[in-house]
């Protein structure tokens, strides 16, 4: 699966290897429905990795369960396709254990906001230096079209005939309120714009949250028109949480761009620079 340009070319040419986005794709073909927005998200992620010239073996893509969560195997990076809703927990573990790695956690709105909702809150407030990408299609794709926390209250489905009647969740507001250090919204249909935002998110210290509107053409075919609704956020990015809060609270759901890039200190990573030997621990027991 790791059919990537090898760093050996550095030695040969004396220059760092140029890795095209294709170098970050694996030979495994996605099972996503043709037309699914997740294809473009995959492509944006690989573009962002390529822009940052990351070595694929130094990137870990972590996910839970869902259509979107199948993404790790489609990259040539290290992948972790865990269990439903626990992607952020697993990703946090990876990053704490190996701070030098780039960790990208990805998944769907059900995975991240419903079963994984609690982890989402705590990942935001903990502010570990990783990037969390949610491919939000306002539906559970993989289990055949049930409402998710971002689904409109009147969306009719088999499991919730007539709609849930429950107000949709606003991920950006919650992320901001919970302490995420970088909050952005992107659209799958704009792969280059999304790649730019992702690259910025990965570079930004702390917990970076990127919500990507990614249509589910099978269960929400009406989302095909999203490309006509999205628009760049009419404001510049801010590091002031109060301004960002006002901005996202008045959001129409289609503002794209970086809405907040904060300056919170990330969760301290890394081990002691001067570790002691085990033998030293014995000292205190010495009679």
């Amino acid at each position, binding site marked *: 699966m790791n059919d990537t340009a090898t760093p050996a070319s550095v030695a040969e040419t004396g220059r760092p290897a140029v890795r095209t986005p294709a170098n970050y794709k694996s030979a495994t073909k996605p*099972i996503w*429905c043709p037309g699914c927005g997740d294809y473009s998200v995959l492509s944006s992620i690989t573009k962002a990795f390529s822009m940052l010239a990351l070595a694929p073996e130094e990137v870990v893509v972590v996910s839970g369960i869902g*259509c979107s969560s199948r993404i790790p195997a489609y990259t040539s990076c290290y992948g972790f396709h865990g269990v439903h809703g626990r992607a952020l927990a697993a990703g946090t573990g990876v990053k704490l254990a190996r701070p030098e790695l780039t960790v990208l956690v990805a998944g769907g709105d059900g995975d991240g906001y419903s079963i994984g909702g609690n982890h989402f809150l705590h990942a935001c407030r903990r502010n570990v230096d990783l990037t969390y990408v949610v491919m939000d299609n306002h539906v559970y*794709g993989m*289990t055949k079209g049930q409402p998710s926390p971002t689904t409109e209250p009147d969306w009719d489905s088999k*499991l919730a005939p007539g709609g849930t009647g429950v107000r949709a969740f606003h991920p950006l507001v919650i992320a901001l309120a919970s302490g995420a250090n970088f909050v952005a919204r992107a659209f799958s249909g704009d792969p280059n714009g999304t790649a730019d935002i992702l690259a910025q998110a990965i570079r930004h210290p702390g917990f970076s949250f990127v919500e990507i509107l990614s249509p589910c053409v099978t269960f929400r075919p009406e989302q095909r028109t999203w490309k006509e609704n999205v628009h760049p956020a009419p404001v510049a990015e801010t590091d002031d949480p109060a301004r960002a809060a006002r901005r996202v609270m008045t959001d129409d759901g289609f503002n794209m761009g970086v809405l907040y890039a904060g300056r919170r200190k990330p969760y301290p990573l890394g081990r002691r620079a001067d570790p002691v030997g085990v033998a030293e621990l014995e000292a205190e027991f010495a009679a």
Partner: protein
Amino acid sequence: MTTGSMDNPAPARAGLSIALAGSGGSGVMTAGTLLLAAAAKAGAYGLMVRTSGPQIRGGEAAALVRLSATPAESLDDGFDVLLALDWQNVQRFADEIPLSAASLIVGEAAEGEVPAAFLATGARHVALPMKATAKGIAGSWTNMVALGVAGALAGLPREALAAALRESWKRDEKSYEANLAAIDAGMAAAGKLGAVPSLPALEPKAGRWLISGNEAAGFGAIRGGVRFVAAYPITPATELLEWMAPALAKVGGTLLQAEDELASINMIVGASYAGVPSLTATAGPGLALMTEGIGLAVSAEVPVVVVDVMRGGPSTGIPAKSEQSDLSFAVSGLHGDAPRVVVAPTSITDCVAATQWSVHLAEALQSPVIVLSDQFMGQSRAIVDRPADSGVVGRRLVAEPNAPDFKRYRDTPSGISPMGIPGVPGTAYTADGLEKNELGTPSSGARDHRVQLDKRARKLAKFDYGAAWADVDGEGELAVIAFGSSVGPLREAIARVRASGVKVKLVAMRLLAPALPEKLDEALEGVRQVLVVEQNHGAQFYRYLRAWFDLPGRPESFHRPGPLPFRPAELAEAIVAAAGRISQPRHEAIAS
């Protein structure tokens, strides 16, 4: 028809096994569903199992249909007919669609070569231009031509196919006519295919049902009195929930899609604590998440029903395929000494009664009941006789208003103590997962712990489960013990070996926990040897039985993992082999 069944001269079952295969948009599932519906109208029994590739849309798929004059809740050993609308990736199903030299392959003429895996069986191949036929009838679909072919091969009357089409038709009249014409064209084309085993002439029978195990379990739950459901979608349990959502609303109940399984289980514990019989449905990954909440229901003595529609595990495993591998987890997967009830339906039909009974047990015992269904039963559709209403409904022992000297966890002889229900004056208490004294006050005292552990174990052990604990059938020195969807093919295997003179007893266990050694001892009266059959890799049922019961002889195990369903022939072979070993002195020595 396949090697297995040829070795075992079996009582011939009149009927046909046909696999309809094709890729995205071919409509084989719809054709299979209509074929089954038509067979039901014609008075036949039958079963349809679905299988498909990894894609949500457009993937390769097959409807595995068995039609028969007698009740059939198992697939046969192989297929008489494989009817393919195209061959794209259909070879993936070669294991699931065993063919023999006696089989017939009907392939779409415009779709090229039959995959080698199918031709290698020696089956006869005939190409039919089904696509061209459909093209020739404006507004018709190729899968309806295929339905006509399949219907004619099975010996179904045209009226039955027409009636099935009519009932499912949601489009306009003109296209109904067109598709009926396509069915006719298919029936005419089938004339050229030569004979295959088909149904005898049957009389339409009133009172038959067409139902999946998931629907049956949902229906049984409502019959048993469930009025609240909280659950999180998961394959293969989602259809159970999707069936219940509107059905519950109709009977005045509520279904809520929770944010996860931790929420689901705790919501139903809360709802039931408040007095409403409650249920959740899930599969292995969800059951794993629920364990803490199920333990709470054990400790706080709150009745809940948890349906686990088992799929291949561990972890995310094989989501849309069957396996009986959550058994160990269901019978022992809770922390602490936590007695619980585990019930397994023995057939699609039995999903109704077993779930209904489970509600009754949960309520009567104030205990969680885990219902172990599985993907095979849950997602297959069968023509069955209407399951009679056993009439059992969940009824819990409730304290009278202002009951004198009310103690929620009173140490009664039966172990069952009246529950206080919120809203009722004078019986207020705090339900708790902490250990407690009889009043319900948290206690870490050694005596209280002992008393409450005894009480919770006693109420399950002493309860009168009646005859429903197992279906025991036949006599013989060899007994086969099984549960769940293994029972269907096993019954068929047993019928075959009995026809060739082998005496064997069947014990299809419905109540898996608590273990009732006296009941099984009684059922195994005169038995010298036991064979345990189950579909998992670790022989979980075998080990469980050996831990809890004194089984006669040297117990044998026949087990293998999913995803392929058991075939009657492999089970018949295992039974004959086990029966052959009974007379061997080695066993005598051990038994004596």
